[in-house]
């Protein structure tokens, strides 16, 4: 049943260059997304989640940034070296992205309708009337009331939740096979977040759009994702199906993260806390990047970089930690 994945990222390395030298914000990251799947990427601030997604869209500001290595296979096509012209065809048609703050990606000077129609016309051969119809359909699909009216309104006239719905409508208007959502609900209230997550899940089922959902909220991951990768300081440190990650976390960082979160259901007497701070990218050149905060750190962790190991007795579960060496090296 092996089907080619919609997205296959192999050893992606994206760096920023400054007077201090090269900062590898994303350092040899590999993962894939299957058709119709929802993959979660979690990790704390600065670990490289957004740089990963911007790399896939080929939207890294250059300079100072650059994809310096690896492959990004989108429906089998390596886009790392694709021209900007080709990328413009790909964006919207094959892969689309939504951001945390919808206001920054909507143009305040144009009506919602204008922006939607423009996008549809660029990517399809639809005429004006047809594009208008399609835009209205999309607004209805994402659950916006009075869609025709909203077509004539400006972004500032809508609430945050409505703007995020518009962004989703825009992203999906050309039926991309892959949607990258970078913290799509972080700026929203919980009751609105619940609506948007339900909408994304619903569209994923209806349209079979694969989704990469980037978030720092483990609750959101548990609720919508099928598989999860955990990033720390530019590296993937663990990957597993969602149930496995929560039930059987293997990396000391993943474990610490899960324990740190206060739960609405039960009161923990005292929260677990990972000592120390998240390292600046590029500041750790040798050994395991989590070593300074890890309670299981041993000599080898300081000198060697741990590879990804398979987790013994588990399916599709890999972890970058010497404690799990016995599972054997994971391929890729």
């Amino acid at each position, binding site marked *: 049943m092996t089907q080619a994945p919609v997205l296959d990222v192999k050893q992606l390395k994206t760096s920023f260059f400054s007077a201090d030298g090269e900062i590898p914000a994303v350092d040899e990251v590999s993962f894939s997304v299957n058709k119709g799947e929802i993959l979660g990427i979690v990790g*704390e601030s600065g670990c490289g989640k957004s740089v990963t997604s911007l790399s896939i869209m080929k939207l890294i500001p250059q300079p100072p940034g650059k994809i310096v290595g690896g492959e990004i296979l989108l429906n089998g096509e390596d886009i790392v070296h694709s021209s900007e012209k080709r990328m413009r065809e790909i964006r919207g048609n094959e892969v689309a992205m939504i951001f945390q703050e919808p206001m920054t990606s909507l143009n305040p000077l144009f009506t919602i309708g204008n922006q939607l129609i423009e996008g549809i016309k660029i990517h399809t051969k639809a005429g004006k009337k047809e594009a208008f119809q399609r835009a209205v359909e999309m607004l209805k699909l994402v659950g916006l009331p009075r869609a025709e009216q909203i077509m004539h309104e400006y972004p500032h006239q809508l609430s945050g939740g409505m703007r995020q719905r518009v962004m989703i409508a825009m992203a999906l208007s050309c039926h991309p096979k892959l949607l990258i959502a970078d913290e799509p609900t972080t700026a929203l209230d919980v009751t609105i977040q619940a609506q948007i997550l339900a909408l994304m899940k619903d569209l994923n089922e209806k349209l079979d759009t694969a989704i990469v959902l980037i978030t720092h909220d483990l609750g959101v991951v548990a609720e919508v994702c099928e598989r999860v990768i955990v990033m720390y300081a530019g590296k993937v440190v663990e990957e597993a199906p969602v149930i496995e990650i929560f039930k059987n976390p293997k990396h000391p960082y993943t474990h610490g993260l899960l324990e740190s979160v*206060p739960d*609405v259901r039960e009161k923990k007497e005292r929260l677990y806390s990972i000592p120390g701070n998240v390292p600046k990218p590029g500041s750790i050149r040798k050994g395991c990047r989590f070593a300074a905060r890890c309670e299981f750190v041993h000599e080898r962790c300081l000198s060697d970089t741990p590879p990804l190991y398979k987790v013994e007795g588990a399916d599709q579960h890999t972890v970058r930690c010497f404690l799990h060496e016995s599972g054997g090296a994971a391929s890729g």
Partner: protein
Amino acid sequence: MAEVLLEVNQLKKYFPINGGVFGKRVGEVKAVDDISFFVNKGETLGLVGESGCGKSTTGRMLMRLIEPTDGKVLFEGKELTNLSDGDMRKMRKEMQMVFQDPFASLNPRHTVEKILEEPLIVHGIGDKEERKKRVKEMLEVVGLSSYHAKRYPHQFSGGQRQRIGIARALMTKPKLIIADEPVSALDVSIQSQVLNLLEDLQEEFQLTYIFIAHDLGVVKHISDRVGVMYLGRLVEITTAEKLYEKPLHPYTNALLGAVPVPDPTLKKERELLTGDIPSPSNPPSGCAFHTRCRECMDICKTERPQLEEIEPGHFAACHLYKKN
């Protein structure tokens, strides 16, 4: 019997909306609309609610950083609302705030020492030597080191800056700390460090906290009692256990139901709240929640429900529980 430290009676803040050619007053934002509650000595009262419901405005009014439109605030039985500016400034020694954004709330051109010393100078506490000594002590108390005193805020991480913000609030040995989203800008692993620190400090210095946040998990963890706000009103207030286990108000229920739970085996069938939060400049008539409430009855559209004690220590403002 618990001792009341702070009492709030029918507090209101209406912000004017000015418009038109002459900037005339054309309306008002009812940011806080008639709320009453109390805080016991040594407890943590959490305040939750969605963006714009009036949490920060409430917190600031308690310190009179925002002047109330109406209502009373009593601190240890003393009314704050009619104090002169000078007397109010003195009172602030007893009550301090910790803010959400540790980056914005610390002066980037001042050393940590200067930042921490300032409240002591303002309140005329100690001589130079004593002040320096207290700065060093306080840095240790919040888990930093005395050598950090000579550094500037940008040399610290977000979590460390929040520790500095907490240290500054504690300099004058206040009785009450009003913390407005103190961990919202922090990563989870750092957030838990700061929450643990706040709990330790409360025990060590017998502090009373008002803890404002929108994260219901965080609020449950740290609070003894929790108040829920919606559109400028307090809709429910009780102990953390009761609120989370047996919420009475339909809004509290919906809010709790919307929180994503970090357990993928639990696929909950949730009832989604539909619609957006109405504008506080034009709140719905009667019960402000009636436009989104599943239980809405005729009376809800016309009559505003008052906060009433439904069960011992459990207050809610909802017509469903009206006692006849």
